[in-house]
């Protein structure tokens, strides 16, 4: 059976990333960034603290790196004219998008997996063997997050006509608003506009709407799913913050379902598995919208 038409495009994308310095530098930074043993995590998670490192590696720095290495993928080729070669191949424009997303994701998944394995080895040597299944689970969810980020960045790259605009949308919009400051934005202005008063992160109301809003972004959904696997609590925040919040008498500005709802049962809409749905939706919807425009537009 013949390989799909997009395969050679994906292969070149992956090759270009794997032979570049950027992704490997990112992997190195991720190891240094994520390796943070601490007493509380050790008390709560034991040897599986090492697996929690993988979640740290997947948050904040990884999205920044993945977006940086993906957002120019199409707009730059459009500017330079190399896109003419891809458009001249016997492929549909959708094939080009698919090849770009899958190839870039593969080219970033390999360095990330290496970083995760190094973290695992460091942790295993220092703290003892963790659950390999849990490690695999968290790593796979992180790879889904990488795919989602590449997909979003490629979608923006496909529908913008200048690198400057792509930069503004990806970093000003997606990274700052939806990744770094989403907790503040969702609980403050957004929740405030919907209910009349902003939510206090030190004493969050037991309101399903607030928590649903908080976990609608890829970063928070990723946090929810990985915290669920790690068993630290139902929240989109980092595992360390969640563990601290759930200590008696703690005073932390974080939104954790278990802390807000106490003994009462949280609504089903806050089930952690729905985080996977959010991730998949972010992976598919922006790209589908971008595809609609990319298929119809003028590209030269």
């Amino acid at each position, binding site marked *: 059976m013949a390989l799909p038409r997009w395969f050679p495009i994906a292969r070149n994308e992956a090759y270009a990333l794997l032979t570049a310095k950027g992704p490997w530098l990112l992997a190195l930074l991720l190891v240094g960034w994520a390796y943070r043993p601490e007493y509380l995590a050790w008390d709560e998670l034991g040897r599986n603290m090492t697996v929690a490192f993988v979640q740290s590696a997947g948050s904040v720095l990884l999205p920044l790196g993945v977006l940086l290495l993906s957002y120019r993928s199409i707009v730059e080729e459009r500017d330079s004219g190399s896109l*003419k*070669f891809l458009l*001249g*191949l016997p492929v549909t424009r959708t094939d080009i998008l698919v090849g770009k997303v899958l190839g870039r994701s593969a080219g970033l998944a390999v360095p990330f997996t290496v970083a995760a394995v190094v973290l695992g080895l460091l942790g295993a040597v220092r703290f003892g063997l963790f659950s390999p299944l849990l490690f695999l689970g968290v790593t796979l969810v992180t790879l889904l997050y990488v795919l989602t980020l590449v997909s979003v960045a490629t979608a923006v790259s496909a529908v913008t006509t200048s690198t400057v605009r792509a930069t503004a949308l990806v970093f000003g919009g997606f990274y700052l608003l939806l990744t770094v400051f989403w907790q503040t934005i969702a609980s403050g202005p957004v929740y405030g506009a919907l209910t009349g008063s902003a939510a206090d992160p030190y004493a969050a109301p037991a309101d399903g709407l607030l928590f649903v809003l908080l976990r609608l972004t890829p970063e928070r959904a990723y946090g929810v799913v990985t915290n669920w696997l790690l068993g630290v609590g139902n929240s989109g925040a980092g595992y360390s913050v969640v563990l601290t919040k759930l200590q008696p008498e703690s005073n932390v500005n974080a939104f954790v379902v278990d802390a807000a709802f106490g003994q009462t049962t949280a609504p089903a809409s806050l089930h952690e598995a729905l985080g996977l749905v959010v991730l998949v939706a972010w992976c598919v919807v922006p790209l589908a919208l971008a595809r609609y425009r990319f298929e119809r537009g003028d590209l030269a």
Partner: protein
Amino acid sequence: MTPPAIETDGLTKQYGDSTALSELDLTVERGEVYGFLGPNGAGKSTTINLLLNYIKPTAGTARVLGHDPWNDVVACHQRVGICPDRFDTYDDLSARRHLELVIDTKRADDTPRSLLERVGLVDAIDKPAGEFSQGMEQRLALAMSLVGDPDLLVLDEPFTGLDPHGASLVRAVVDAESERGATVFFSSHVLGQVELVCDRVGILHRGRLVAEGSLAELRDRCGLSADATIEAVFMELTGDSVRMGEVSE
């Protein structure tokens, strides 16, 4: 019956209020070497961009090797070789990888080496294209267009950036492809080269086709002597004293 290599009917492209191409009716028969000429901004690139699905038409229809170029792009490009204008190569990828991309997507059985031999670039097979001169990039693009023995070669300004050796190489490739039975459609403003390779030329001016035919026919139509150069014909047809096209409006 085999459909023409290229057939357009009322093909029009507008950008807002400005018309880049106006109701082009063009037929390029199989096996022809057709030169598409015109001053800068005449609509040559617009036509080629439309035929290659780089851009979408405002009105009109087109067939490339019998296929709809916008909705049947895979079948169409499978049999077309493309050497674009104002392109850029991938700086980090070698010449070999550029060709493998095309070979594998077209599911062809050429080898990068044999293709590069045809354009005199085999010494640079493993060099990253970022180190290429403009002429080398042009040769690489030409090699990429030859993958899979296409039925139609579309060469957009293939003489750009080439020294006389390069230009004569392009002519040799065009002759060889034509000999093989391929149709060659190319745009150019390097008129001396066009004269040497074309069976038939079409002259585009301000978004309209103002003349079409063999060079001898065009000389006659312009009332020029038999030794008039194509440049004289071109100037006659696209200068201020245009006799066809615009006058008939």
